[in-house]
């Protein structure tokens, strides 16, 4: 008797069209294309800039991917990042705490924001729709708190140790920020590959009812994934401010779009149940390259927003085509049997 699905051949084909490989090719082609127009694109300095920019996008993208994996969204991701950054500034300059302690407390408070999101979502119905509506409301609340703390004034003169994170390059080539992003990537990869929590999140994303019936405590999974997402967002906000050397209240306001774009380019499924950590990592790099290229080509800066939208549409469109093809292939195989 033939097996129902030729899993072996299917896996091989999947590998062939692997998302990560595709993005890598796109990144290289894109870099070469820009290089022909602007000679400084492939240079050490620009690479360092690219790595710094992409590390923020990567971490924020992971923050969104964790929530997305379990069928939900976190629209408040940027405002949690901004709030955490501003809290560090307030603790250091108004309270007089050591910056290390301030960072730890700010990240913990960021995690509390995530817990609040998770609790509200589970109380109000824990569907994907509710998750983004609730975080839309909390986004406004967190951003309001950020503005109330700062009165829209930035914090300057931050301690040297703090700004060192954002400015030092290991061996003069690799920014500390990028190394932190890689560490996060490994952690997230480990969670989804080897921890039962990661598997539970994916199960909830694939089919919430089935997950409940198989004994997963969906409520705590949802709350926990929002806590992780908020922790990542808070870390990204603080990292961003170490790079700027000052803390502004508008940090995170423009994060929403690329937070979705990075994991979607990487091959995560919007409805949940599928993630690709390495793909999201590469997606972050690609997005950083696009905004960087716009600067190098000296085109209208407003076009970046448009391009990000188009990239998201392309990413989800390609994913949709792939899904239709897979469905078609499955049907054909079944027809053969």
């Amino acid at each position, binding site marked *: 008797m033939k097996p129902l699905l030729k899993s072996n051949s299917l896996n091989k084909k999947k590998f062939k069209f692997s998302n990560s490989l595709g993005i890598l090719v796109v990144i290289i082609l894109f870099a070469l294309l820009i290089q022909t127009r602007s000679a400084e694109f492939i240079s050490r300095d620009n690479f360092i800039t690219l790595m710094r920019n992409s590390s923020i996008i990567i971490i924020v993208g992971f923050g969104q991917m964790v929530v997305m994996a379990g069928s939900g*969204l976190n629209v408040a991701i940027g405002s949690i990042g901004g709030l955490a950054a501003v809290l560090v500034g307030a603790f250091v300059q108004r309270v007089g705490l050591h910056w290390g302690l301030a960072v730890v407390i700010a990240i913990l408070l960021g995690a509390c924001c995530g817990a609040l999101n998770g609790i*509200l979502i589970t109380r*109000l*119905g824990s569907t*994907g*729709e*509710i998750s*983004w*509506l*609730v975080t*839309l*409301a*909390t*986004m*406004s*609340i*967190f*951003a*309001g*708190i950020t*503005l*109330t703390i700062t*009165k*829209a004034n930035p914090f300057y003169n931050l301690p040297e140790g703090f700004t060192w994170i954002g400015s030092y390059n290991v061996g003069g080539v690799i920014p500390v920020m990028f190394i932190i992003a890689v560490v996060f990537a490994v952690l997230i990869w480990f969670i989804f590959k080897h921890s039962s929590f990661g598997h539970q999140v994916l199960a909830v994303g694939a089919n919430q009812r089935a997950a409940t019936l198989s004994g997963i405590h969906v409520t705590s999974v949802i709350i926990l994934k929002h806590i992780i997402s908020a922790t990542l967002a808070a870390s990204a906000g603080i990292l961003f401010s170490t790079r700027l050397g000052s803390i502004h209240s508008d940090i995170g306001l423009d994060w*929403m*779009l690329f937070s*979705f774009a990075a994991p*979607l380019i990487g091959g995560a499924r*919007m*409805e949940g149940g599928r993630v690709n950590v390495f793909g999201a990592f590469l997606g972050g790099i690609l997005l950083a390259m696009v905004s960087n290229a716009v600067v190098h080509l000296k085109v*209208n800066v*407003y*076009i*970046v*927003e*448009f*391009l*990000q*939208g*188009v990239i*998201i*549409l392309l990413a*989800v*469109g390609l*994913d*949709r085509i792939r899904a239709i093809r897979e469905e078609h292939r499955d049907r054909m195989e079944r027809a053969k049997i």
Partner: protein
Amino acid sequence: MIKKSLSKFFKNDIATISVIFAVMLIIFVLTSDPLRLGFSLTSISKDVAIYAIVGMAQMATLAVGQFNLAVGAIGGASAMVCGYLINIPTAGNMEVEKYVQAEIGLAIPWVLGVLVGLIVGALLGAMQGWLITKTKINPFIISLALISVIHGLNMGITENIYFRRLPEGFTDLNKVSIPQAKAEIGQASTFGFPLVFLITIVIMVVVWLLYYRTAAGRKMLATGVSKRTADFAGIDSGRYVILAHTVSGLLCAFAGIFTASKLSAAQTSTGDNWLLYSFAAPILGGTLLSGGKVSIFGTMIGAGIMTLITTLLAVLKLDAFTHQIFIGGILLAAFMLNRARETWSRQHDTAIVESKEHAVLVEAEGDRS
């Protein structure tokens, strides 16, 4: 008995929020300067008009069980198109002000310009609906991507200039009110309904007719209750989802153009802060997030509540930065109310079914004896 009637009262969508609105209005009337009261009420009603239309734009998509995140982007794009068409270009050389004020403009009759702006809004909405139904990609991500596509194009093409030499007839939509509101020094100001408010009421009536008196409206609501059931009942649900998005886009365009008329300037930032209001107004008003139920008058009251809250916060001299916290909090409260309403309506439905079953049983018993 009292408890029962009280709970019945609170389960009525309009009644609860009307009470909240009335209380807030009374607080506002008591706290504000009596000399300026009429005038400030006139100006509040302009904001209510815009937010009611934005709320109805969101309501149109909620009715089919979907969302329109691009309300602000569509409104902004329509306002800019309309602004470009009706802007009166200046003759002289104004190099200095080039980046502040647009010298370009076609100066066509403003009614035509508004019409083209509305068509652009409807087309953008239709495009969103088409993409959602035809590609079957997650509606949220399509709408989110379209925000940046539309807003980015708007900024990229116009380079973030604004049109502020708009014809008088166009800005009169907000300046003229019936009866004309006047504020003379030392005398109590009078209240008048601004033209935009009256137009909004006409729009509300048209939307009401659409949902309660036309087949298309009923089919949209049916699609919202259950897409599958609608499909089985022979309704081409995809078509009605596209129609709902078109209506939504058209209403966004109205709101964008009214904002341009209110500010006497069409600018790209039009609609940037609409998203939260667009959800808060209809949901407070009784539109269900799960689809299939609209409340047009309720949306108006919801818009009134949102506008009064922001005004009251300003009157109470609260920090402008705290406004966002309040608006987010109200939106959360609205979702909780929505959750309760969904439960009630489910209970109500089950109660009806049970009472019918009971009646059938009683009848059967009667037959047997």
